[in-house]
């Protein structure tokens, strides 16, 4: 039964990674850039919720809503100010370094406002969870909530991309920017929309993550951001179901590795799995193989 418990915990952590990875993968698929600042949007979202819930004493739902709105605005602003001018720059590295600059900026603004000390994040979910099999298998409330939220977001995104016009526009822009703009798609607007969705997802992930691990510092978002990026690559970057699978696999491996092999080496195990998968399947689990042509 304890194995099953760890597995469920892993799925819960995996859903959080998956939600972050969805943001990564969408932005990468459409803007073809690694948004290194994505992890810090999680941190920003968490601080907003922390301020509203703990300092102002408003209900968590309000906090989440405000965090989603503010993170979305922040994402759009960042894209407009820092990334858009570099979209046609000579080297793709230019926008990558700018994203790193944005990441430093967000971390240090948070450091100035909230200080370096760890903030205790009060749980947003009061549900104590369920116990199955006569109390031997206990599933905590936030574990179930994060898994359910992850699945809902996946379904929502799949529907959005496949059934709506904006979603189809995203697919088209991801495929070929030039051709998409010739077909009358507003490429700039589509990219902005992608950033908006990605940042909103980061806020949701921030809420879930700080419920699961209730300690908040300006650097909280960095490592989950990197891990989620690894998850996105693992699943095949640019693919939405891939990001979900990658996130879940990563979460389960991390928790099981921590429990059964070594708690210190869990990160090494996670990265090791990524290397092995990429060597066998160089574009990730669900990635498309692109034939290079002259």
């Amino acid at each position, binding site marked *: 039964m304890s194995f099953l418990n760890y597995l469920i915990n892993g799925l819960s952590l995996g859903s959080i990674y998956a939600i972050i990875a969805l943001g990564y993968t969408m932005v990468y698929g459409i803007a073809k850039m690694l948004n290194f600042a994505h992890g810090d949007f999680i941190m920003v979202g968490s601080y907003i919720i922390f301020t509203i819930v703990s300092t102002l004493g408003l209900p968590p739902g309000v906090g989440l809503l405000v965090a989603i709105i503010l993170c979305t605005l922040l994402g759009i602003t960042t894209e407009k100010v820092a990334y858009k001018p570099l979209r046609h720059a000579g080297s793709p590295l230019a926008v990558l370094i700018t994203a790193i600059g944005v990441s430093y900026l967000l971390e240090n*603004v948070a450091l100035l406002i909230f200080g370096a000390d760890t903030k205790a994040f009060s749980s947003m979910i009061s549900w104590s969870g369920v116990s199955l099999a006569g109390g031997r298998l206990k599933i905590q409330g936030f574990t179930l909530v994060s898994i359910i939220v992850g699945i809902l977001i996946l379904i929502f995104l799949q529907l959005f991309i496949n059934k709506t016009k904006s979603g189809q526009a995203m697919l088209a822009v991801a495929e070929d920017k030039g051709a998409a703009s010739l077909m009358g798609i507003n490429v700039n607007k589509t990219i902005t929309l992608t950033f908006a969705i990605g940042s909103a997802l980061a806020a949701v992930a921030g809420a879930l993550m700080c419920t699961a691990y209730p300690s908040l510092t300006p650097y909280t978002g960095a490592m989950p951001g990197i891990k989620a990026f690894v998850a996105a690559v693992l699943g095949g970057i640019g693919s939405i179901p891939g990001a979900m699978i990658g996130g879940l696999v990563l979460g389960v491996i991390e928790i099981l590795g921590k429990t059964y092999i070594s708690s210190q080496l869990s990160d090494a195990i996670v990265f090791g799995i990524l290397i092995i998968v990429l060597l066998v399947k160089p574009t990730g689990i669900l990635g498309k193989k692109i034939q290079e042509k002259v």
Partner: protein
Amino acid sequence: MKKLTKQQKSNLITLAMVVCFYLICEIFIRTGLMSSHLKGLLVPLTYYAIAAVGLNLCVGILGELSLGHAGFMCIGAFSSSIFSVMTRDALPTVPRFILAFIIGVAMTALLGFLIGIPVLRLNGDYLAIVTLAFGEIIKNILNAVYMGVDDKGLHLSLKDAASMGLDASTGKKIINGAMGITGTPSDSNFTIAIIILLVSLIIVQNLVQSRDGRAIMSIRDNRIAAESTGINVTKYKMLAFTISAAIAGAAGVLFSHNISTLTAQGIYFGYNASIMLLVYVVLGGIGNIRGSVIAAMILYVLPELLRGMDKYRMLIYSIVLIVMMLFNWSPKAIEFRQNHLSKFSKRFRKEAAR
């Protein structure tokens, strides 16, 4: 005397610049004009310049984005430090440091070669993330490993210091898990660091000018075209990647012999440190070796000099970084510069000619 080409002249200027920098610093140190805080920064800024030169070989000349060079620094630092600690009492300073340096660089080159075999099969962002993964694995393992030596030989453990089973009387702990290596002799100094920087500059400059270097750059410009003209892509990629790793390892050796306690912390050897090196390379100009040296030196010293405004220094640094990237790389800013600023310089030049 043979006439120098433009490239050779530029290379000599780079070397002369480093020598001038060294001489100026020496004069300042001798006359006591340099504060001890600034003096302490000289070796670090030199080894970061070395690491940036190494990374530029990978990013600029080979054209593959690596986010794991801090991991290579880590390997160089730890392998040389282990040797130095073990032979601390047995060998005099000079041969000990030379041997430690050779061991550090050789170990890093070997590991760079081994990592290169799988990594260089990938390309683009996938390669970047795998180098990041390798860097993190190196850091993670070195954080967890315990190593000691006694008269029976080496002992290793991944659990804790006690489970190594060291002999109580003759045993000596070398790597103490996350506490790292203590007691590395501080054998490196500014002069040695500058010599190593000059040597790595000469190696990279000669490589770039050689037939091998042209082959490497042709792979960067168009892999398929290079392959179809009979260039062995894998061989040259491995060559550049291994040399690049070895240079980062050399920087690592200087790193570990400059501080008393060596730990595999994220700020020194994690992906953040690799990204910092990448920032040096990109701001200095991708593929521009001289630029890397200048950028590394300025960008390393800048946040340290801003220590007076402690709270705001990283904030200022990040804003400077973003603005510089926008100004340097945005097509609109480049156009603006060409339209407005070049007029000034042209007019200025014309007037000067008159």
